[in-house]
C-alpha cells in the first residue's frame, strides 16, 4: 500500500461535493475528534497512577448469584438502570467495588466474557444493588435486551474501592502523611457512567457525616447521572456539561479552585475521564490532599487470575504491574514527580 497523501488532512471540500462525500468528510472529522480525545485521555494518566497502600480491613468475600432483575429502565438519553436483587452483595459491597455481569445468551448472540460494572447504589435493607450502564458494544447491547423478571448471573463485590482517609478507624491517630486526618469533607468528581463508581462513597459520606460535594459531568443536563441520588443523600451537586462549556477543564478547575481554595476538601475521589483524574491530581497537589481515581480495563475474571487487566502503571518489564481488578479499580492519583 503506497500513499501520496501521507499525513495531510482530507482535501478541503469543493463546490462540486456530493452529499455522500460531505457525509464521509464529516465521519472522518468525527473520527479524528474522537481519536484526539482518546489520546488526550490516555496521555493524561501517564505517570499518574500508583497502587494504594495496603487495606486495613479485609475485603468482603465475592460470591456469584442469580440476581432477579427488579427494574430495567432507560435513564436520560444514553443510559440504562438495573436494580438487581442480590442479598449478599448488597449487604457486603464496599464503596467503589464492582460486579462482573454475565450477559445471558439470546437469539444466538453469545457473549462470552462478563462485563465489569460499578455498583452505583447499595440497598442492604432491600438486598438490592443498582447499576447504571451505557450501551457501548455487543455486550451492553445484548444486556439491554434483558427483561424485568429474568435473572442475571453476577459475581461480586469485586476489587478495591474508594476509601475515605481513616474512615474505617475514624478516631485512630493524628494525621500524618501515611495517615491523613479523618475526612470531614470530600470532593467527588464523576463523568458519564464514571459517576457510578463514586456514588457508593457519596452513600458512605452521608452515613459518616462527611460533607460531600459532587461534580457531575456529562454531555448535557439530560444526560447527567446521579442528581437524584445526590439529592437523596444530601450531597452538594455541581453539575457541569459540555453543551454549555461548564465541563471544560479550565472552567471546571477555576470553579473548584474558587470554591475550595480557602478550605480544601480532605480527599478527592474521581472517575470517568483521564483528564479529570489529572485535574484532580493537580488540585490535590495544590491543596495537599490525597486523590483516588477509579480506572477501567478490559477484564475476563475480575478475580486477579486471568492477568488481563493491566493497570497503566509503568513497571520493570520483568515484573508484572498492578491489576485493575484486584489492585484497583481505585488507585492513588499523584502528579508525576509530585
Amino acid at each position, binding site marked *: 500500500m503506497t500513499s501520496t497523501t501521507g499525513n495531510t488532512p482530507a482535501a478541503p471540500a469543493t463546490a462540486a461535493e456530493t452529499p455522500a462525500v460531505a457525509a464521509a468528510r464529516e465521519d472522518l472529522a468525527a473520527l479524528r475528534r474522537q481519536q484526539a480525545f482518546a489520546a488526550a485521555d490516555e496521555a493524561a494518566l501517564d505517570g499518574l497512577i500508583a497502587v494504594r497502600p495496603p487495606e486495613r480491613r479485609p475485603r468482603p468475600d465475592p460470591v*456469584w448469584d442469580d440476581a432477579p432483575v427488579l427494574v430495567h429502565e432507560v435513564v436520560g438519553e444514553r443510559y440504562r438502570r438495573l436494580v438487581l436483587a442480590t442479598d449478599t452483595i448488597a449487604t457486603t459491597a464496599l464503596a467503589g467495588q464492582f460486579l462482573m455481569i454475565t450477559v445471558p445468551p439470546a437469539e444466538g448472540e453469545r457473549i462470552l466474557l462478563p462485563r465489569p460494572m460499578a455498583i452505583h447504589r447499595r440497598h442492604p435493607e432491600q438486598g438490592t444493588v443498582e447499576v447504571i450502564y451505557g450501551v457501548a458494544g*455487543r455486550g451492553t447491547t445484548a444486556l439491554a435486551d434483558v427483561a424485568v423478571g429474568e435473572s442475571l448471573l453476577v459475581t461480586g463485590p469485586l476489587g478495591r474501592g474508594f476509601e475515605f482517609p481513616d474512615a474505617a478507624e475514624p478516631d485512630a491517630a493524628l494525621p500524618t502523611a501515611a495517615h491523613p486526618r479523618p475526612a470531614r469533607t470530600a470532593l467527588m468528581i464523576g463523568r458519564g457512567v464514571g459517576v457510578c463508581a463514586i456514588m457508593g462513597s457519596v452513600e458512605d459520606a452521608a452515613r459518616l457525616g462527611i460533607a460531600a460535594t459532587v461534580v457531575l459531568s456529562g454531555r448535557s443536563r439530560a444526560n447527567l447521572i446521579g442528581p437524584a441520588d445526590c439529592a437523596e443523600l444530601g450531597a452538594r451537586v455541581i453539575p457541569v456539561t459540555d453543551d454549555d462549556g461548564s465541563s471544560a477543564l479550565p472552567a471546571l478547575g477555576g470553579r473548584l479552585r474558587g470554591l475550595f481554595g480557602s478550605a480544601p476538601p480532605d480527599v478527592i475521589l474521581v472517575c470517568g475521564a483521564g483528564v479529570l483524574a489529572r485535574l484532580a491530581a493537580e488540585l490535590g497537589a495544590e491543596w495537599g490532599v490525597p486523590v483516588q481515581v477509579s480506572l477501567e*480495563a*478490559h477484564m475476563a475474571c475480575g478475580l486477579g*487470575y486471568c492477568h488481563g487487566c493491566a493497570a497503566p502503571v509503568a513497571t520493570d518489564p520483568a515484573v*508484572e504491574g498492578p491489576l485493575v481488578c484486584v489492585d484497583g479499580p481505585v488507585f492513588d492519583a499523584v502528579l508525576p514527580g509530585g
Partner: protein
Amino acid sequence: MTIAPPRPTTDARRAFFDARPADSAAVDLSVRIGSLTLANPVMPASGCFGPSLGRLIPVAELGAVVTKTVFGTPRGGNAAHRLTEIRAGMVNSVGIPSRGAAGYLASQHPLYLALGVPVIVSVGGHRPGEYAPVVQGLRGAGDAYELNVSCPNLDRHGTDIGSDPDAIGTVVRLVRQETDKPLIVKLPVLVSSIADCAQAAEAAGADAVCVANSIPALPLTADTRSPVLGNVIGGLSGPNIRPIVLRLVWLAARAVDIPVIACGGIETADDALDYFSVGARAVQVGTASFGRPFAMVDITRALQERCLAAGAADIGELIELWRA
C-alpha cells in the same frame, strides 16, 4: 458510626456448594494420566483458573487444577489491551506474566495445594532447553507438569516450539531427566500435522497430550482498523474454535496411545461429550469459566448424572449407548 449486626444473607453460590451430589459407586469417572489418577476428567485450562476461584466454586469436585504457565525467570505481561471479545470469540494476549519458578513456589503453590485436588503445573519456555530448568526449579512441587509448547521458539525465528516435532521431542526428553512425574504436552493449533506432534511427544516419553491451545488471531478496531491488543496478536478461544479443535483431537487420538486431553471451547457436558466421542479422555475448560465460574463443576456433575441415568458405568459406555 454504628455497625449493623451481620444478618444472614443468601446467594446462589451458597446453594451451588450445598447441592454437591453424592458420589455414586455405580459410575467411575476416573482417568489415569501416567502414574496419576484423577477422580474425574474435568479440569481448568491453564491461565483460566486461579486459587481465588476456590471461593466461588467447590474446586474439590474437579479432577485436577492446572496453573497458569510458569516460566523460569520473572516476566511482565503485555501492554494493554490484553484481552477483548469479538464476535468470533475471546482473544487474549496476556503475555504470560510470571514470577518465575521460585516466585510460583513461594507465593502461588501453597494456595494451589490448599485446594485439595491434584495440581498440574504448566511450564513454559522460549527455547526447547528452557523447560527442564523450570521443572528443576519447581523442586518436585506439583503432581504433574503440562508443557506449554505454544511459545515462539527463539532458536528458530519465532516459530512455535510446538509446531516442530523435533523440538517437542527435545523438550520432553530434557524434562524427563528432571522428573518421573506425569508429563502432558499442550500442543498448538497451527501445526502442519497434529499427528506428528503428538507422536513426537509420545515417543519422547510424554504421558498425555493436551489438544490444544488458543488459535492466534488479529482483532482490529472497527473505526480505525488498528489492532485492539497491545501485542497486536492474541489467542482466539471460546466455542467457535471447538469444531477446529475437535478435528485435531480426533486425529491425535488416532495417532497415539497415551491419553488426549481436549481443550477448546468447552462450555457444557455436551461439549465435553463431543470430545470424548472423538477419543478424548479428559477435558479442560478455559473461556467458559469467566462467564460461568461454575461451568467446570457443572460439567463434572452432569457427566456423573448422565452416566447414572443411562445405566452406563463410565463415559465410554455412555458413548457406546448412542451408537448402538
